[in-house]
């Protein structure tokens, strides 16, 4: 058929464009990994090949930072925060979308507006509140304000618009109560959405920077993002160590992504029906 050469060109261009996009996306990571193997002086000079300083850098990093502690802090906040946020926010998204009412629509509109207030403006009153609750320098202070995430509620609401009404109707005919529909019908069907949300929430919690900076006071409670920032701000930073810290700061989110991205594929195979 005459469509073939054009189709071939189109496919080649597509692969080319994708490869370029992939290269641009991955290059900084390559840079970071190369950096972990070079000395600070070499990194500053812009050396782009692998070096032999990996062991030194890692050793220095472990000597300067209580890595296990810091990692645990970040992990605890990220995991607990993600689980709770998924639960509370998806419930709310479902409620707003499936069980509509005029009042709740107005509340939702107000919530969206609240999303627009920049965090810098909320930091101080939030800090005062945490102080009153005695939660300064605790993980709870970081997890609690993030559980009801307007952003995630909004996301679940929009995604729920694609949830077929017939499924719910059929379930109701079968005599299922609302919470049962949520658990046994909605949850399995919306798996790709939950997977995407998990990645997003975990990332936000793991990379959280400004609020933990304000609320955490002691070395024992620090998260990995604070450590990386502190390492880069010395008068004479050791960039080899910075790169090692950066890799550690990035690895878990990559792993979570790899673990969950197969859910998308599962959706492809007709999970909806």
């Amino acid at each position: 058929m005459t469509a073939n050469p054009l189709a071939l060109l189109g496919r080649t261009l597509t692969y080319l464009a994708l490869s370029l996009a992939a290269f641009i996306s991955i290059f900084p990571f390559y840079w970071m990994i190369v950096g972990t193997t070079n000395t600070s002086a070499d990194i500053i000079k812009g050396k782009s090949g692998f070096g032999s300083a990996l062991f030194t850098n890692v050793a220095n990093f472990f000597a300067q930072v209580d890595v296990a502690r810091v990692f645990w802090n970040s992990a605890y906040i990220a995991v607990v925060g993600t689980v709770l946020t998924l639960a509370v926010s998806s419930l709310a998204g479902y409620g707003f979308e499936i069980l509509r009412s005029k009042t709740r629509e107005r509340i939702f509109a107000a919530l969206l507006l609240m999303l627009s207030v920049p965090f810098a403006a909320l930091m101080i009153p939030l800090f005062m509140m945490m102080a009153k609750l005695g939660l300064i320098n605790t993980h709870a202070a970081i997890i609690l304000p993030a559980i009801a995430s307007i952003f995630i509620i909004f996301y679940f609401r929009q995604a729920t618009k694609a949830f077929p009404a017939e499924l719910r109707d059929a379930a109701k005919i079968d005599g299922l109560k609302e919470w049962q529909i949520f658990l046994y019908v909605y949850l399995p069907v919306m798996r790709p959405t939950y997977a995407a949300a998990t990645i997003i929430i975990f990332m936000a919690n793991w990379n959280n920077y400004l609020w933990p900076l304000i609320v955490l006071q002691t070395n024992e409670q620090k998260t990995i993002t604070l450590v990386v920032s502190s390492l880069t701000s010395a008068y004479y930073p050791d960039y080899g160590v910075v790169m090692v810290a950066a890799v550690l700061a990035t690895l878990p989110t990559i792993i979570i992504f790899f673990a969950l991205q197969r859910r998308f594929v599962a959706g492809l195979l007709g999970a909806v029906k």
Partner: protein
Amino acid sequence: MSTAMQGLRLTFGAALTTTGLLFGTTAMAVDVTVWCWDPNFNGATMKEAAERYKASHPDFNLIVVDFAKADLETKLQAQLASGTTDGLPDIVLVEDYGAQKYLQSFPGAFQPLSDKVDYSAFAPYKVELATLEGQTYSMPFDSGVTGLFYRTDYLAEAGYDEAALQDITWDQLIEIGKAVEAKTGHKLLSLDLNDAGAIRILMQSAGSWYFTPDGEVNIAGNPVFKAALEAYAKVLQSDIYKPVSGWTEYTGAFTSGEVAATFTGVWMTGTIKANPDQSGKWGVAPIPKLDGVEGATHASNLGGSSWYVLSSAPQKDVAVDFLAEVWGKDVDFYQKILVNQGALGSLTAARDGEAFKASDDFFSGQPVWQNFTTWLGEIPGVNYGLFTNEADAAVAAQLPALKDGGSVDDAIAAIDAQVRQQVQ
């Protein structure tokens, strides 16, 4: 005896000793917390001081928590603003430019130290900047006394030796820069166009600042400010520097030998000395002085910080005593931190110590520390006021225009207008 038995004995012995220690000292341990940036510089000096204090106070325990400098300032300001003192440390490091801002924005947050510390022992300009209504609140730490660090080999190739750099103006520096590039191919300086630090150095070298001692805006109609801007504009328009952006590029330029010099605070010594293969190739000269301005000197300051005690500190009295005893008096301590960290303290008596008197092989055998402390005593004292950051931002906004040959008078007018608007 089998290794297992030996191991068991060792463990048992260790356990006994530990328990002994636990019972002996933990019950009395006093924990003093310090917040600072750069654990290898500031943190290390604090740890050294703690060791000394511990010798006479065995129950003293210092905990250093480090943050990035900007982070620490954000954190401190956020917490002080919230009015909660929960979790604040006992001692905190504050950069000198921000001293008055904190003291005046958050009255009562800091502990006055006037009756515990003998301030006559310190460089006057460091004491003045932390004094409010007759009370002084700081323990002066490192000075940012400025010098012109230069590569002796490049300058020699261009025909300049130590003597030739002693009493120069900024115009003469530009000439030197051109000669160095002609003869060696290296630019003289690396400059970050966004950094108003150079203007601060120039202003203070002639005893002036963005604001009068009473806190009035002192930009339009300030002859020193105009001279500073004009001198720096000439530098920016000349070709003697490599434009850089950000700290890494700036320091990378002279530590790698790409550019020949930099004029900055003494605390840059640590960074410069981190390249031992350049030993003997560096020297330090006084910074150039402003031309045609009354009161111009070769001495100025960039940065520098001091320790402050929070009045909410759980271990307030111990903290104050610690600072007063080690930081306030211990001359030997200042020798140690000079040699180990390159930290130039502000205790005037320290300059008579050995380390301060020594000449430094890295800097071609020059008695650099003596020089620095001489200049330290000559720094004109200024009141940094409350709005240094706002003024810096206003100056930085005009630097690109100046670089492109814009009118200095226009720039002054714009800076003046912006600063007046911001200081409400």
